[in-house]
């Protein structure tokens, strides 16, 4: 058939001849594979029929359990549960990255192709490679200047310090009314090492004090959490796949200025007022900054804001009068109650995370049991292979036990993860406000906080130990067996 091609004059005819011949080859290949599979199945079935019923049922149970668990994998919730359990039990990154360089390069290429500013911004925020991250940020901002805030997030983990200062300065030029940026700049201007140096009483002429004063007097305070959340949510929605831990970890860690620096400035401002009027003015400035910080979404900002506002109101209580004093006393009393704001407004997400802790533990334990069951099935199959299909009660028991464990653990994992699936849908819904969405990401803290460097060691240590115990048991049985055989032979039976 192939040789004929050389004798076909017409090119189109030769092409048709070749295409049809290739079709024949492919058909034959498929038929051959199907024939082989059918023979293998028939062979396996004949082998199974010849086995003892208990062993046969054990093998069928293990196979059915594997198929059933694989069927669970078709659901995105189950896949997500396993991946979260695997990450949180081994190495949950402390940084907000969690996106590999290959995926980032793919995202950047897509952004380039579509001139998509948000995709560039996403790549910039998640890339730990400083230079590439800044290149992406530059592309994003050149397409859409309203994304300049991303430099603030990049500055949070940018190296070295002068790069960080440059990033904050970039955002400051774009958003000059944001007091947080001046406070961050003040931290960069404070002499090193600090906060030791900041702890010393300032005299007011220090550059960091003047910069901090501008931060306190600025009308706004924004750590761009809402903007970050909206971007993360939109990109995750566009890509059709959400990595919940990535979303949650994006809001982990300090996003605000140094609390030590802000408190030192507040003390300086309140303790160095020359007159009661000046003291009242300073107290109002500090209280106002505290209230602005409390309007942010992160708990750190809310806590710091509460402390600052309380400082300001406490000073104002003693020097104000009339209706203003009543208001100040009332507000100060509200802020003084321990955890008053936490229980009223903030703590619901943490309560939710605590309530979901049993589900998280079930998912993690289920994941471990699935791993162990698969290892047991693999071990049982290997033992059968080594013993050339001759089973034993131990292997039968192992196969039945692992099949039951696998099914139970898969069902438990799937059911226990259902609440997370429901909450993730709510987080991703455009109808959910960014504040609620950010707070809902706290549910993933039910799996434990990031940076658990020894969790991986414990997990793999436990699994290695389990395998060693199993190996020792198998070896011990094999070493005992010849002695027994010899004894039988010696009796002459």
């Amino acid at each position: 058939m192939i040789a004929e091609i050389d004798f076909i004059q017409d090119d189109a005819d030769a092409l048709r001849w070749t295409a049809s011949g290739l079709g024949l080859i492919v058909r034959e290949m498929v038929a051959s594979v199907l024939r082989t599979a059918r023979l293998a199945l028939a062979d396996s079935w004949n082998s199974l029929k010849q086995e003892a019923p208990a062993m046969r049922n054990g093998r069928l149970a293990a196979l059915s359990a594997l198929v059933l668990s694989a069927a669970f994998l078709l659901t995105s919730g189950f896949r997500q549960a396993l991946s979260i359990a695997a990450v949180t039990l081994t190495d949950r990154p402390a940084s907000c990255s969690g996106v590999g360089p290959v995926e980032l390069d793919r995202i950047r290429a897509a952004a380039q192709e579509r001139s998509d500013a948000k995709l560039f911004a996403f790549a910039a925020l998640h890339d730990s490679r400083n230079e590439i991250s800044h290149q992406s940020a530059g592309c994003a901002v050149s397409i859409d200047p309203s994304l300049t805030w991303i430099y603030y997030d990049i500055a949070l983990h940018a190296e070295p310090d002068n790069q960080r200062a440059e990033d904050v300065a970039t955002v400051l030029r774009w958003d000059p009314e944001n007091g947080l940026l001046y406070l961050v700049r003040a931290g960069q201007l404070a002499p090193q090492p600090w906060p030791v140096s900041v702890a010393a009483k300032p005299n007011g002429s220090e550059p960091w004090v003047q910069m901090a004063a501008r931060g306190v007097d600025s009308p706004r305070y924004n750590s761009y959490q809402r903007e970050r959340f909206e971007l993360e949510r939109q990109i995750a929605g566009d890509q059709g796949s959400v990595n919940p831990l990535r979303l949650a970890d994006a809001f982990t860690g300090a996003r605000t200025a140094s609390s030590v620096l802000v408190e030192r400035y507040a003390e300086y401002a309140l303790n160095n007022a020359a007159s009661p009027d000046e003291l009242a003015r300073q107290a109002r400035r500090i209280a106002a900054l505290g209230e602005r910080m409390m309007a942010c979404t992160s708990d750190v900002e809310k806590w710091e804001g509460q402390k600052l506002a309380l400082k300001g109101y406490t000073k104002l209580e003693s020097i104000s009068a009339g209706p203003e004093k009543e208001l100040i006393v009332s507000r100060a009393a509200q802020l003084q109650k321990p955890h008053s704001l936490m229980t009223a407004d903030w703590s619901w997400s943490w309560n939710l995370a605590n309530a979901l802790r049993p589900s998280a533990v079930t998912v993690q334990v289920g994941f471990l049991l699935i791993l162990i069951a698969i290892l047991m099935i693999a071990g049982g199959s290997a033992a059968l292979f080594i013993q050339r299909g001759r089973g034993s009660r131990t292997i039968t028991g192992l196969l039945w036990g692992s099949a039951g464990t696998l099914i139970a653990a898969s069902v438990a994992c799937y059911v226990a993860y259902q609440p997370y699936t429901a909450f993730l849908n709510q987080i991703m819904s455009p109808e959910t406000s960014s504040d609620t969405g950010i707070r809902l990401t706290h549910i993933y803290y039910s799996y434990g906080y990031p940076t658990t460097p020894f969790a991986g060691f414990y997990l793999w240590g436990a699994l290695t130990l389990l395998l060693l115990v199993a190996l020792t048991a198998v070896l011990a049985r094999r070493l005992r067996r010849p002695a027994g055989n010899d004894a039988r032979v010696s009796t002459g039976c």
Partner: protein
Amino acid sequence: MSRQTVLVLESLLAEPAAWIHGYDISRQTGLKSGTLYPILIRLAANSLLETRWEQPEPGRPPRHMYRLTPNGTRRARSLLAKAASRRPARFLKEEGCEA
């Protein structure tokens, strides 16, 4: 017997003693290589066809050639006669020749 096999046998019966290439059969019958060669292989396996390699021309690969065996010629004639008897009922309908 399939319609394609009938076409191949008809083509081979035109000159039963002559050796013929696969491509020539394809041109005469209009069958594609993917359809033709399984038929030729099946007929050869049933000893209805004999095959040989053509002496290669310089710079060209050798080609496979086919012709009916004496037994194949007899069987082909008989099969074609049977097929022809069914033709009014089946093939004419297929070819849209019904009145």
